[in-house]
């Protein structure tokens, strides 16, 4: 990426400090996930009963849990699970929702059948759907991704379907058809490029809500296995200590909220970046 | 009746305002139709919205100038004060009749509501007046149409409804912003005829905005030609078409296809209008004017009365309008 390219993507963040903050939090999470073993001040798995439930102090900034494990180290280690679940769910939801939505809109007969099925799935609350699926498939990280992803696949499909129906009748799509364009051309050159920015926003929301969904599953013991640290697991293990050791809930809870929130901020900024009409906002010609 | 003096509408920060309407002045007498003609983006709609006190907020604002309705400056009044002070007697109709009507309410109710606001009556008297208004705009079958929904009417009929709603406040001044642009010629001629007849009958003044020189010639008593936020020529309709004195007016007339049938090429005005606020000195038309001379680029052209009631904003106006 050249300097100009970098500036291109940075501009919406510079124009809006709150988006820059979101970007910072996200980058922080990403770095934490990659460099967890080096960043964590202590071994996140090391048990030391002598320092059980110590409040935050100079040695243990986030305090320790009921086994004397360092909360900060565990929170850093958990970023890995958060990113894994988030990207898995986004990949699944978009990977299935986009093709189903686009094809349904382009081929009305197929679409009629597929969209009815999506409607049925949408009738269930997404957490209930996820729970039901986990009960059938058994708890595991992959199954958690599938279970949460299914709920967002339906909303993604709906959004893509609606947008494609509209794009399909745009004059420039008609122009392209009149010149002999086939379905692959229309999808690749006209429909997908115009879906990118709404999908980017959708992806950031899905990523954010996947964090909450994963946390809920973890909390119920149906997500990541308890021995792997995740913010949801941390909440689940320590919720009985809420009055004695509130920091055990406060810090992982904050991490969940902060990543979800910052993802939404970044998603908004990227959408504006990709919309030519917003270029004036960033002081470019046009 | 209505006197607009030096109206200036600006966008952008107060420290660096961009004038989209720059010092527009015109007078409108009782029963008179003034045509305001110009290309897209030249500031016609901004002028009419400013006169009506309907500028969108936030955004454009009146930076200078006065709008006197029977001697009272209405720019100093809030919209509700205008009605209280009896100066609510200006009404406006817009280009797209469908977007100005509520699609899920019956025509009769929508007209009656306008009657209720202005006459402070409701129920059967309001509905009776609504029916009267429909008769006034020569709607076929008015009693039946009261219970119709907008989508059941044709474009021309919808525009008649908009006119009926505008007439509900018994306006002294009607501002019509391209009310026939979306209509077919066969329907346009009916709506224009109706507007003209109403002005005569109700002694109502009308500011009629359009980009169509043909419509102007058919309808207006006097014409103001607008370019890049300024009125560059004002004259009686016969004088303007018979002997245009501004180079832009002349150019506009020359490039109309119906004046050239048979010619292999149409005369054109080269280039495009300048973006608002980009011309800092001299004449705004200089970049496209075929008769441009050195002084045009530096000194703002004077507003000169070349003959009685015929004003031109040009340093070197056309002498005779040229051969046609």
């Amino acid at each position, binding site marked *: 990426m050249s300097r100009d390219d970098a500036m291109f993507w940075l501009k919406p963040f510079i124009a809006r400090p709150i988006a820059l903050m979101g970007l910072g939090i996200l980058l922080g999470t990403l770095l934490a996930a990659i460099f967890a073993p080096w960043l964590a001040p202590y071994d996140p798995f090391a048990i030391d009963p002598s320092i059980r439930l110590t409040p935050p102090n100079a040695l243990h900034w986030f305090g320790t849990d009921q086994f004397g494990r360092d909360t900060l180290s565990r929170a850093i280690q958990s970023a890995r699970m958060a990113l894994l679940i988030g990207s898995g769910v986004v990949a699944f939801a978009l990977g299935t929702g986009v093709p189903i939505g686009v094809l349904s809109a382009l081929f009305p007969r197929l679409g009629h059948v597929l969209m009815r099925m999506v409607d049925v799935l949408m009738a269930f609350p997404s957490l209930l759907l996820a729970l039901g699926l986990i009960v059938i498939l058994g708890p595991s990280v992959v199954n958690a991704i599938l279970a949460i992803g299914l709920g967002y696949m339906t909303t993604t499909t709906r959004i893509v379907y609606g947008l494609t129906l509209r794009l399909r009748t745009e*004059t420039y799509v008609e122009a*392209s058809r*009149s010149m002999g364009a086939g379905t692959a051309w229309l999808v690749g050159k006209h429909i997908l490029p115009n879906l990118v920015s709404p999908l980017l926003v959708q992806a950031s929301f899905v990523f954010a809500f996947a964090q909450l969904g994963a946390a809920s599953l973890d909390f119920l013991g149906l997500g990541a296995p308890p021995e792997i640290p995740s913010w949801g697991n941390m909440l689940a293990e320590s919720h009985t200590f809420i009055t004695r050791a509130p920091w055990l809930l406060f810090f992982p809870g904050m991490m969940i909220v902060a990543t979800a929130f910052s993802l939404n901020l970044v998603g908004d900024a990227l959408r504006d970046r990709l919309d030519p009409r917003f270029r004036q906002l960033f002081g470019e010609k046009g | 009746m209505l006197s607009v003096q030096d109206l200036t509408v600006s966008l952008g920060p107060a420290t660096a305002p961009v004038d989209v309407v720059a010092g527009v002045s015109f007078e409108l007498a009782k029963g008179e139709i003034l045509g305001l003609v110009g290309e897209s983006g030249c500031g016609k709609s901004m002028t009419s919205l400013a006169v009506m006190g309907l500028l969108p907020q936030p955004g454009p604002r009146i930076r200078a100038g006065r709008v006197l309705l029977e001697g009272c400056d209405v720019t100093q009044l809030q919209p509700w004060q205008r009605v209280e002070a009896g100066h609510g007697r200006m009404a406006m109709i817009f280009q797209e009749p469908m977007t100005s009507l509520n699609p899920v309410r019956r025509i009769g109710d929508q007209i009656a509501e306008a009657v209720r606001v202005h006459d402070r009556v409701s129920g059967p008297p309001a509905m009776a007046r609504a029916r009267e208004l429909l008769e006034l705009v020569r709607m076929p079958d008015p009693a039946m149409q009261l219970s119709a929904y907008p989508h059941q009417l044709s474009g021309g009929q919808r525009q008649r409804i908009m006119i009926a709603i505008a007439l509900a406040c018994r306006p002294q001044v009607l501002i019509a912003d391209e009310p026939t642009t979306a209509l077919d*010629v066969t329907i346009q001629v009916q709506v224009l005829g109706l507007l003209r007849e109403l002005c005569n009958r109700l002694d109502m003044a009308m500011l009629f905005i359009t980009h169509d020189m*043909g419509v102007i010639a058919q309808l207006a008593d006097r014409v103001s030609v607008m370019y890049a936020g300024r009125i560059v020529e004002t004259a009686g*309709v016969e004088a303007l078409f018979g002997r245009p004195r501004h180079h832009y007016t002349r150019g506009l007339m020359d490039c109309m296809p119906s004046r050239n049938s048979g010619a292999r090429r149409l005369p054109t005005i080269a280039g495009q209008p300048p973006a608002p606020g980009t011309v800092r000195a001299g004449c705004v038309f200089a970049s496209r004017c075929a008769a441009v001379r050195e002084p045009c680029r530096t000194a703002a052209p004077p507003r000169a009365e070349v003959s009685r009631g015929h004003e031109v904003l040009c340093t070197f106006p056309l002498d005779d309008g040229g051969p046609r």
Partner: protein
Amino acid sequence: MNGNAVLDIRDLKVSFKVRRSGRKYQVRAVDGVSLSLAEGEVLGIVGESGCGKTTVGRSIVGLVRPDSGTIGFKGRDMTGAGLRDMRLNIRMVFQDPYASLNPRRAIGDSVAEAGDINGFFTSRAERSAAIAAALTAVGLDPSFAARYPYELSGGQRQRAGIARTILPSPSIVIADEPVSALDVSVQAQVLNLMMDLREQLGLSMLFISHDLGVIGQISNRVAVMYMGRIVEQAATRTVLDDPRHPYTRSLVAAIPKPDPSKRILGAIETGEPPSLFKRPSGCAYAPRCPLASQRCLVEVPELRSVGDRALACHNV
């Protein structure tokens, strides 16, 4: 019809199924249109909005499937066919310059689209040279290739839309109200451009418009449409100077003439526009026609030739 016709349409019928207030209707948008376009000719199609002009154009470029009728291109029948070489040979300019260019594609990519779809270019260099040539031909600087639609004015967009239809150069251009959305001064520039291109590239053109002034300027022959049918067809000057069909007469009379000494307001009666949902059984124009007779209410007038023109009317 003509032996040397590049485009020959016979008895084209197109209908749409629409729902209104819960009921299903079959709307006959085009109801038996026959047209032929000679080599190098500009044929104007004029009529009120909704009379089926656009639908005729869309049928020719294969965007709607006709119910019946044939569309012949240089003697070959191509009804409903998606044949590649015909798609390159017949191209369409659209009315709305703001909607007809993909906001996310650079102008150059839009201009080269027909070539790209049909594998016309053999190298990148050839492609960029062709784009530059097409842009130059429509009076745009080649640097416009890298710009995006939002950076262009309406007139420039329409020029780009025209550049798209001449790369590679077609035989026929269907222009659907190409100047209706433009201002008069820009309209004249674009009309001049289309006349120049027609001459340079030897195009035949179907020019759809509701503006008789524009039609009079550019076309050799005019077909007047009313409710899906052609009611009068002849050389442009014949139609404009001496309209015969009652509908054409009212259309010509209603043009707002830019001459304040010839005022028509209040002097002519044009009647209410028709509804496609309630098609009269005889002549569709009968409810508005000053000449309507008993026969008009029951019998549909066929298009027949009268002297140097074709007319569909019982009483003229």
